């Protein structure tokens, strides 16, 4: 485009008579080119548009919707309109005035009439353990209507307990940080600060640490197993290398579910792994490898090994063997030559393979679900169980949010220092 800038075209001919007409022609040519260029851009955008729109609908919106559930929960605000109104003037300390109690009683009764009382009870219970039975009990007593509502409310100690009203007040704001903080075992304390939840309620930090630990252990194991094999494949003649690479690709091309199924067969009490351990004399008795941390790590290592190995291999095959020979002939010991000549060059491949495996391990779901025990479930399994068992979408969303932040941050590091081209998923 720049070669056709009108100024460059008309400058040498500036002295001629027809220069004005000529520069006009050049300008219109440039404009026409620019128009054509814009047309090309729009056409290529139009080609990509169907997939981009489909991905936005089938993938983008679902994820944004899910994540929004972590911070936006209008259940309580919708269920308690009068209470929200009454709590406007409350300063947040001590108990609110009787008007708030009456408003809450009215809201509870209207929820009972609409049939939404249980939903409200469940939603309050998620933020305030034990609230479900208290709400339902109060609703029943209000229904009986043998006493004035205020008296009923004051008679249930729960509504005068110090922790109750701040939770109701925070619930009347639809936007909440409650679930995100809970996902990190944190909560707001009474005076506007953030504190850790009590140790018996704290579960998620432990689950995240467990997920990181398993991911790190698997990454390390795949590196120890994969690096020498990648080196061997990159060093042997072409024909043999092709056979060896098939040994890596066959498991790579088998689905995670099938490989997990194979490991459930192998790890049984009377399975092949136990047979092997007995035969080698490593173990005196058959071990319980199924539903154990070690069984999970072994199976995940098997599944991830090609993901770590292939990026390392694709860097190693570009390194000339003559470089090592040159190092030797300059007097370097094998270890020195390896450390100072070979390793720095394969380092990007090692980083790519390890980061990829670590990122993928953070999201493991099938293998822990089938091979891990109750104490080996990773964060994805908790997300699934909050949806399937607890029906607590907000908590599932908050855990997804945190997991996604970690995943995308690591992926960003990957793209930043290694480039997207090193992402070998195909």
């Amino acid at each position: 485009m720049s070669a056709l800038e009108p100024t460059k075209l008309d400058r040498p001919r500036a002295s001629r008579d027809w220069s004005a007409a000529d520069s006009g022609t050049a300008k219109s040519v440039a404009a026409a080119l620019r128009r054509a260029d814009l047309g090309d851009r729009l056409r290529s955008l139009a080609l990509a548009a169907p997939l981009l729109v489909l991905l936005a609908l089938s993938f983008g919106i679902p994820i944004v919707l899910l994540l929004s559930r972590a911070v936006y929960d209008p259940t309580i605000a919708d269920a308690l309109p009068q209470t929200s109104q009454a709590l406007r003037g409350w300063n947040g300390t001590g108990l609110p005035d009787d008007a708030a109690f009456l408003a809450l009683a009215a809201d509870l009764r209207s929820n009972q009439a609409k049939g939404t009382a249980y939903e409200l009870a469940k939603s309050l219970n998620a933020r305030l353990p034990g609230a479900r039975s208290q709400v339902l009990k109060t609703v029943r007593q209000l229904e009986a209507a043998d006493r004035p509502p205020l008296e009923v409310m004051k008679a249930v100690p729960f509504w005068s307990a110090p922790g109750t009203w701040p939770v109701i007040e925070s619930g009347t704001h639809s936007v909440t940080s409650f679930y995100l903080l809970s996902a990190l075992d944190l909560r707001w304390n009474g005076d506007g600060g953030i504190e850790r939840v009590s140790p018996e309620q704290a579960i998620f930090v432990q689950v995240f640490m467990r997920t990181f630990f398993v991911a790190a252990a698997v990454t390390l194991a795949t590196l120890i197993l994969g690096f020498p094999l990648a080196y061997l494949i990159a060093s042997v003649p072409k024909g043999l290398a092709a056979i060896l690479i098939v040994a890596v690709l066959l498991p790579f091309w088998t689905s995670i579910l099938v490989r997990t199924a194979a490991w459930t067969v192998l790890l049984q009490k009377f399975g092949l792994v136990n047979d092997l351990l007995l035969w080698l004399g490593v173990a005196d008795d058959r071990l319980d490898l199924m539903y154990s941390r070690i069984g999970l790590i072994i199976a995940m290592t098997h599944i991830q090994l090609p993901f770590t190995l292939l990026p390392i291999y694709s860097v190693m095959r570009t390194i000339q063997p003559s470089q090592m020979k040159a190092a030797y002939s300059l007097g370097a010991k094998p270890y020195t030559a390896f450390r100072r000549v070979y390793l720095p060059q394969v380092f990007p491949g090692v980083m790519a393979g390890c980061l990829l495996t670590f990122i993928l391990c953070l999201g493991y779901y099938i293998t822990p679900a089938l091979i891990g025990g109750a104490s080996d479930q990773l964060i994805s399994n908790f997300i699934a169980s909050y949806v399937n068992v607890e029906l607590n979408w907000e908590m599932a969303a908050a855990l997804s949010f945190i997991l996604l932040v970690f995943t995308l941050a690591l992926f960003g590091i990957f793209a930043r220092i290694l480039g997207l081209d090193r992402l070998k998923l195909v």
Partner: protein
Amino acid sequence: MLLSSYPTTGERIRITLLWLWCGMVILFLLVPILVPVPLSFNSGAFFIFPLEGISTRWYEVVLGTQRWQSAIGNSLIVAFGTTLIATTLGTLTAIALSDEKFPGRRIVMPLLLSPLIVPVVITAVGSYLFYARVGLASTYAGIILAHTALASPFVVVTVGASLTGFDRNLMRAAAISGARPITSIFRVMLPLILPGVLSGAAFAFVTSFDEVVVVQFLASANQRTMPLEMFIGLREKLSPAITAAATLMMVLSIVLLVVANLLARRGKQRPRID
């Protein structure tokens, strides 16, 4: 092998250890995926070697009973639907992205790859939440849509790779000869990148056929696919029928991916026409 012309003792030991270690790693890679194969032909009902006898009774269970048959049928419906949509739209997108005039490629490419990076449980739970609202949960269309998101990145990447070897001058030649852009794409470009497109289609098919997490959240009881039946079977009780199903799935994905990779290589190696 790997030894220099005049190996020292230390070098011999190092190379021997390397071969031993790599031999063990290769056994570790291959044995687990090969073990279900003989077990699937076991005539007994257990997973224990030595086999009691050879029989195809577990294959008769997988291919003959109604439960597995409908699972295989569902898998095929979903996988073919996904392949069709993902290949068509993915190819168009790859063609668009291969044009250097495409605006914002550096933003679009990571977005297109993101379904591979986002943990699949998050995709599954999000789809469940959204599709239930718009009436797509428990429908084939919903499962196919979600699988298309997971499969299309493979198509974009594979077709994109085969387009790097495509000579854009051919498109200019077609335009000069009077072909409209659409005609030149169908008559000039598509025949030349066909191996890449077919390879992408095979990747898409396998991605959908092997997928279990999204299906677990989106499928109703009569939309269970083959992997989902396997997953449920593994959770409930281990039956050798699972090893037969696993063997069938393994053979299918390996065959398709071998074909896909051969095609992808052919797509990339095509000589340029001058």
